[in-house]
């Protein structure tokens, strides 16, 4: 791909290293890299769309080059204003948002935001949304002109705009249609980001796979609501909003687990991840990588910590990261020696 990966991850690729081969106490450096749709990530930790801006905002707070990847705020054909305030509301261990997809539009993204991202030593994924299949296609055609984009992530699930992605994410035919149309024009691999607000996630996972998706990511936010009992009005101007944060983690984990077993393409897990322990649950459930969302807000260095602690875990267990994937029947059954 476009960039060399860090010196740390530059090591001989080949057959997976047997576990526990080296004697205890001997230095063991786990392989943290993952490959998804031909893209090599130096580690499986990405930041989720809409929670990390265009990267620049966090440059003062952490080393962006540590990240496996950055998924930028959803981009549309035209710039968008978003919803009137109030747009967010904190709930128990979670938050509701109805931002309304405020963004700078595809052209300004290429001119103003991409140059900074391109210079980073991390993979840049651009989240794309639209109001018609034509919108998605035209947005991707514009983005195709930009250098340094590793993949597109289709947001077919944003619950915030009445006419928006919801439509595509809750009808398998439309999921298939928009995936196929986008795949046809996309110059880089296509990740489809699924909505959790459906009765059977496997139907949508397969619809995207059959439409040509190179990978899946899930979940987007769960539609929720909160009411101010003093005024009798919803807390958000939009009425409903998307729930994110630790509160959704068990729900998200179950959906990721189901999706992993429904398709052959790789899956990225998202939802309430704020620690390496959280991330490991998703990886063990079968996700190939994970994204960190809301945690960036209250702990701007959450992603850095997750990377550091994941590496420490792999060192302690003496396994390469990839060996953990899909070991949900227990490490012993997966042939990993127990510590």
């Amino acid at each position, binding site marked *: 791909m476009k960039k060399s990966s860090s010196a740390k991850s530059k090591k001989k690729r080949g057959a997976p290293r047997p576990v526990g081969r080296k004697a205890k106490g001997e230095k063991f450096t786990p392989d943290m890299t993952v490959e998804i749709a031909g893209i090599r990530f130096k580690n499986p930790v990405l930041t989720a769309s809409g*929670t*990390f801006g265009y990267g620049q905002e966090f440059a003062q*707070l952490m080393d962006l080059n540590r990240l496996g990847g950055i998924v930028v705020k959803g981009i549309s054909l035209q710039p*968008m204003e978003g919803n009137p*305030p109030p747009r967010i509301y904190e709930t128990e261990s*979670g*938050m509701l*948002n109805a931002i309304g997809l*405020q963004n700078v539009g595809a052209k300004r993204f290429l001119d103003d935001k991409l140059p900074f991202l391109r210079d980073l030593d991390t993979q840049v994924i651009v989240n794309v949304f639209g109001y018609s299949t034509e919108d998605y296609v035209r947005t991707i055609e514009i983005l195709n002109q930009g250098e340094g984009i590793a993949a597109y992530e289709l947001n077919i699930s944003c619950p915030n705009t009445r006419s928006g992605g919801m439509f595509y994410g809750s009808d398998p035919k439309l999921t298939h249609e928009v995936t196929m149309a986008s795949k046809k024009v996309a110059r880089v691999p296509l990740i489809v980001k699924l909505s959790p607000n459906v009765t059977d996630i496997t139907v949508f996972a397969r619809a995207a796979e059959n439409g040509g998706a190179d990978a899946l990511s899930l979940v987007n936010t769960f539609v929720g609501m909160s009411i101010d009992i003093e005024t009798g009005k919803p807390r958000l101007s939009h009425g409903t909003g998307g729930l994110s944060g630790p509160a959704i983690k068990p729900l998200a984990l179950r959906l990721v687990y189901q999706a992993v077993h429904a398709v052959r393409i790789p899956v990225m897990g998202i939802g309430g991840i704020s620690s390496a322990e959280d991330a490991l649950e998703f990886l063990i459930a079968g996700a190939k990588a994970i994204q960190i969302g809301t945690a*960036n807000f209250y702990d701007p260095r959450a992603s850095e910590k997750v990377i550091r602690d994941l590496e420490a875990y792999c060192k302690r267990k003496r396994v390469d990261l990839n060996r953990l994937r899909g070991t949900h029947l227990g490490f012993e059954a997966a042939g990993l020696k127990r510590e």
Partner: protein
Amino acid sequence: MFNKMAEVRENIPLSGGHYLLSLYSPAQARVTRPGQFAMLRLPNRSDILLRRPMSIYDVKPASRKSKSPALIQVLYKVVGRGTGAMAELKGGDALEVLAPLGHGYFREDYQRKLPQVDEVVHVAGGIGIAALLLAARELHKRGIRQRLFFGGRSRADLVCYKDFGGLVQKTILATEDGSRGHKGFVTVPLENHLAGSERGKILLMVCGPWPMLEACVGLARNYGHPCLVSMENRMGCGVGVCLGCSIGVKGEGHGAYERVCTEGPVFWADHVRWAGGTPEI
């Protein structure tokens, strides 16, 4: 802007559920400008996810001997879960502080107004006082005449105004129940003052609850004075990425919304879209 672990030095209860919290954080204290704010992460409360935005009320040296600012002070009022948890902080506790954030009162285009006015009038409603002290001190240094109008529901709300004593020429208090100062809204004595002024010669700096802001902005418009408002809104990140704190503004630009945490929290009153663009929190 940095994210630092800060140590609680004091958390002093004042009247009416107000507290003055002192945090030891020299690197942040040194670079704080008037009108900026901090995002405080509450320790040991996983149910309280988001950090709470708080104006930086004052910065101070940590001891009598030293001159360089090392403490960040936050003046807050308990109104809910987060501020309730803040009230339980004790000396020696540590919490993560992201600061200083936002543009304060001395953004370049705001400063350019200063030579054109004879006086700066601060208007504080309740805990809004917390956004004004550092500005008053800076203006005092520059030799600018100042006046403070401070209103609250009752005298228990009128905290810390004595800190303004040496900085402003006059302090006018008002309480709705008449327990101190003028009885009624602070906007009444404010209007009396503005009525006798030459148009455009006063710069208003206003921070307070919603109805007071709107009333003050109306008065500033009627009497032809420029007015800066320090806005509040719910915040997710404090650094410009969640777009949760956006308020409606006039004109083009990044849509017709700007982020309180990044483009604010201090705005020109006539830049803000008051109807429909701003939350009544």
